[in-house]
C-alpha cells in the first residue's frame, strides 16, 4: 500500500532527487542511552534554545536535531526514514502525511488543552502561530507612509518601479513548501495576490527558498522589500540589528497565520520521549507570558483572530493544492505572473 502512496507523493511534488537533503544536523548528547531524533524545518539557531531547555528537564536524553526543507522533511517521512518527531512549517504537507497514515496518534492532558483549531484528530498538533509579513526598508518609501494593504503595496511598486527593480524578494513556491502554502492560501483568500504578483513579476523579483535568507538580504541592503516572510524569523533577526530603517509590516487586508505543527511519524521508535517533547512544545506554545522564546506562542493567533484572520485551518482541504493537477495549474499561473 505504502509504495503506491509514495508514488503518489513523488508525482505530487514532481521534484528531482530521492535522497534526503539534510541541511544541518546537531547532536545534543545526553547522559542516558535514550535518544530522540527530530527532523524539523526550523533553523538550528532558532530551535537551539528549545532543545537546551528540554534537555534541562531530561538530561538523560540524547537529542538529534536535523534541519531540512519542508518538502525534504515530507519526503523523508513518506520514505519512512526513522525520526521520532517531525516539526514542519508546511501545514499542508504535514496534513497530507497525517491523512495518508504516516503519523501516529498521541494524546495527553497537554494535547487535550489545545484549542480545536490547533490540532487535527490526535495526529497533528500546532505549537506556534506565525504570521506572514512584509519586511521592507523605509529608505525606499521616501515620504510615503508604510503600506498597510496589498493595494498600498501595489501602488508603491507601480509608482516607483525604479526603486524596486531586482530588489523585491519572495518565496520560490516551486521549491519552498511554506512559500507554496502561503501563496495558495493567499490566492484563495484575496484576488489582490495575483495583481501583486503581476506587479512584482514586472520588477524582476528574486526568489528564495527560505525566510532567513530574505531577511538577511534586506538587512544587507540587497533587497528593498521581502514579501511573505515568516514574521517570527524576521523579528528574531531584527532584534539583533540596530538599523531602524528596516520594518516589519503586517498586511491589514489579509494576513496568513501559519501554524507550526508536530507529528509523531508512524514508524517512530522512541514514541514515549517524542510524546514528552510534544507535551513540552505545547506547554511552551500555550504560554501566557511573552517569554523570550524565538518562536511566538499559539495565543497570539487568537488576537489575530479578532482582526479577522484566523490561522490557516488544519484539515483535508489543505491537501487540495498538493494535488499534482492543481499544483501544476497553480505553478503555471504563478510562473506566468512572476517570470515575465
Amino acid at each position, binding site marked *: *500500500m505504502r509504495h*503506491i*502512496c509514495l*508514488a*503518489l507523493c513523488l508525482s505530487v511534488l514532481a521534484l528531482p532527487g530521492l535522497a534526503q537533503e539534510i541541511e544541518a544536523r546537531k547532536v545534543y548528547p545526553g547522559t542516558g542511552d535514550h535518544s530522540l531524533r527530530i527532523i524539523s524545518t526550523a533553523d538550528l539557531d532558532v530551535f537551539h534554545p528549545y532543545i537546551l531547555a528540554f534537555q534541562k528537564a531530561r538530561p538523560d536524553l540524547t537529542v538529534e536535531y536535523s534541519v531540512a526543507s519542508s518538502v525534504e522533511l515530507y519526503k523523508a517521512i513518506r520514505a519512512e526514514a526513522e525520526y521520532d518527531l517531525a516539526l514542519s512549517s508546511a501545514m499542508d504537507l504535514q496534513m497530507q502525511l*497525517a*491523512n*495518508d*497514515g504516516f503519523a501516529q496518534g498521541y494524546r495527553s492532558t497537554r494535547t487535550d488543552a489545545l484549542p480545536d483549531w490547533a490540532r*487535527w*484528530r490526535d495526529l497533528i498538533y500546532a505549537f506556534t502561530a506565525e504570521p506572514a509579513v512584509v519586511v521592507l526598508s523605509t529608505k525606499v518609501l521616501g515620504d510615503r507612509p508604510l503600506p498597510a494593504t496589498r493595494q498600498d503595496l501595489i501602488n508603491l511598486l507601480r509608482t516607483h518601479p525604479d526603486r524596486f527593480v531586482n530588489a523585491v524578494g519572495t518565496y520560490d513556491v516551486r521549491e519552498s513548501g511554506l512559500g507554496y502554502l502561503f501563496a495558495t492560501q493567499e490566492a*484563495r483568500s484575496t484576488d489582490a495576490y495575483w495583481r501583486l504578483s503581476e506587479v512584482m513579476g514586472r520588477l524582476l523579483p528574486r526568489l528564495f527558498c527560505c525566510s532567513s535568507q530574505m531577511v538577511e538580504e534586506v538587512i544587507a541592503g540587497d533587497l528593498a522589500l521581502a514579501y511573505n516572510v515568516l514574521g517570527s524569523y524576521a523579528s528574531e533577526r531584527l532584534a539583533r540589528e540596530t538599523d531602524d530603517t528596516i520594518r516589519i509590516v503586517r498586511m491589514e487586508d489579509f494576513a496568513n497565520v501559519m501554524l507550526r505543527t508536530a507529528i509523531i511519524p508512524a514508524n517512530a521508535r522512541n514514541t514515549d520521549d517524542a510524546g514528552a517533547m510534544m507535551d513540552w512544545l505545547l506547554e511552551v506554545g500555550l504560554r501566557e507570558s511573552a517569554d523570550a522564546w524565538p518562536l511566538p506562542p499559539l495565543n497570539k493567533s487568537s488576537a489575530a483572530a479578532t482582526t479577522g484572520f484566523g490561522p490557516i*485551518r488544519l*484539515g*483535508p*482541504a489543505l*491537501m*487540495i493544492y498538493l*494535488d*499534482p*493537477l*492543481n499544483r501544476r*495549474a497553480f505553478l503555471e499561473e504563478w510562473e506566468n505572473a512572476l517570470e515575465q
Partner: protein
Amino acid sequence: MIPQISIGRRLTALLAGVAAVLSLLSWSMVSGLARQAAAQSQDNVLAASATTIAETVRSEQGEVRLELPYSAFSMLGAISEDRVFYKVTAGGTLLTGYADLPAPRADPASGRITFQTEDYLGEAVRTASVRRNVLAGTRAVPVDVTVAQTLGGVRAISGQLSRTAAGLSIAFFIVAVGLSALAARTSLRPLNSFAQAVSRRGPSDLRPLRRDTPSELAPLRSALNRLMDRLGQSIRRSEDFIAEAAHRVRTPLATVRTQAEIALRSAPDADARQRLRQIIRAVDESSRSAGQLLDHATVAFRAEDLAQDRMDLGVLVTQTAAALEPTATMKDIRLELDTAPAHVNGDAVLLDSALRNILDNAIKYSPEETTVRIKVRAAEKTARITVSDDGPGLGDGPARALTGRFCRGSNTEGIIGSGLGLTIAAEVLEAHGGQLDLGPNPEGNGTCVTFVLPSA
C-alpha cells in the same frame, strides 16, 4: 405444583418486562436511525464533494483537465476530522489522486452517484463515485470521480447518540418499573379490600356481600354469596332438624318419666324400684340433653340476627340464679351472689341460656354442701361474670378444648352430661363479641368460668 407467585408481583414483572422490551426496541431503533442519519449526512457531503469535483472537469485541446476545488475537501473537513481520499480517472487511466483507492464495482450511470463501503489503508472508508462524460477531441471520455472518507465521525456521532438513547431508555425503563408497581398495586386494591371484607366477617356471619366490586370481581362475589347462602341454608336445616328432633324426643320422655314415677310409687319390691330409679335417671339425662340441643339450636338461630338490648348483667344473674336455686338446694349447695351494675348490649335469652348452662355445670360437678360464687363486675371496657365452684376442676386436658361440642373433661366419669354446656356458653359470648375464659378457681380447688363481654 408451581408455587403461586403474588398477582401483584407477577403483574409488575410482566409490565416491567414489556417496558424492558420497549426500551430495548426504542434504543435499537434510535441507534439504528442515528446510524442511518449520520451515514446519510456523510453520504450527502461525499456526494456533494464528488459532484463539485466532477463539475470542474473540462476538456482543453483534446485533453481532460480538472482542478480540485477547495470547497470539495473543506466541506468534508467541516463535518468531521476524517481522513479523505480521492481518485479521478478518465477512460480508465488515473488523472489524479490515490491510484489504489477502490473504484466503484459497477459501472456507474452518468450523473448517478454510487456509494460503497470499502477497506482502504487499513481503515473502513465510505466512497462516493460519480461519472461524467467529457468530450475530449472527438470522443466522449467517461471521467470517474471517487471521493472517500473514513467512518470515524459517523461512528462517533452514532455512538454518541446511541449512548444518549441508551441512557434515556434505561431511565424510561426505571420509570416504567416504578409505574408498573404502582399500577399493579392500584389494580389489585379492589381485590385486597374484597378479601379483607370477607376475612373481617365473624365466624357465623353468612350474610351476602353487598359491597360494590369491579366487574372482574362480580362473578367471584356472586359465587361467594351463593356458597354462603347454600351453607346458611344447610346449617339452618340441620339446626331445625336438631331442634325438631329434640322437641319431639322431650315430650314422650316427659310421659315416660311420669309413668315411671307412678310405677315407682306403686312398685312392690326394692329390686323393681331400683330399676325404675335408673330408668328415671336415664330419662332425665336424655331430656336434659335434648334441652341443651334445643338451647344450642336456639343460640345458632338467634345469633344470626342478634338482639342488642341494653341490660344489666347483675339483674340477669340474679334472675338466673333464682331459677336454679331449687336444683342447688337439692344438693345443699349455696349460690352466693355478689353483683354490681354492669351494662351490656345483647340478647337476654341467649345470655340467660349461657349462664344457666354454666351454673348447671357448677352445681352438677360441685360436691354437696359447698358454695358456688357468682360475681358481676364492670371494668372500663368489659363486663365480667365470674362463676367459681369447689368442684373437681377442669381435669388435665386443655381448657379451651372443653368448649368443643360434646367434649367432656377427663374427670367427669360417673356424672351425667352431654358436653354441650360450655359450647353453648362459648358460642353465645362469641356472638356478643365477648369470650369465655376457663381456668382453675384461684380461691380453691374448683373451676372458675368467666364471661367477658364488651360494656355497653
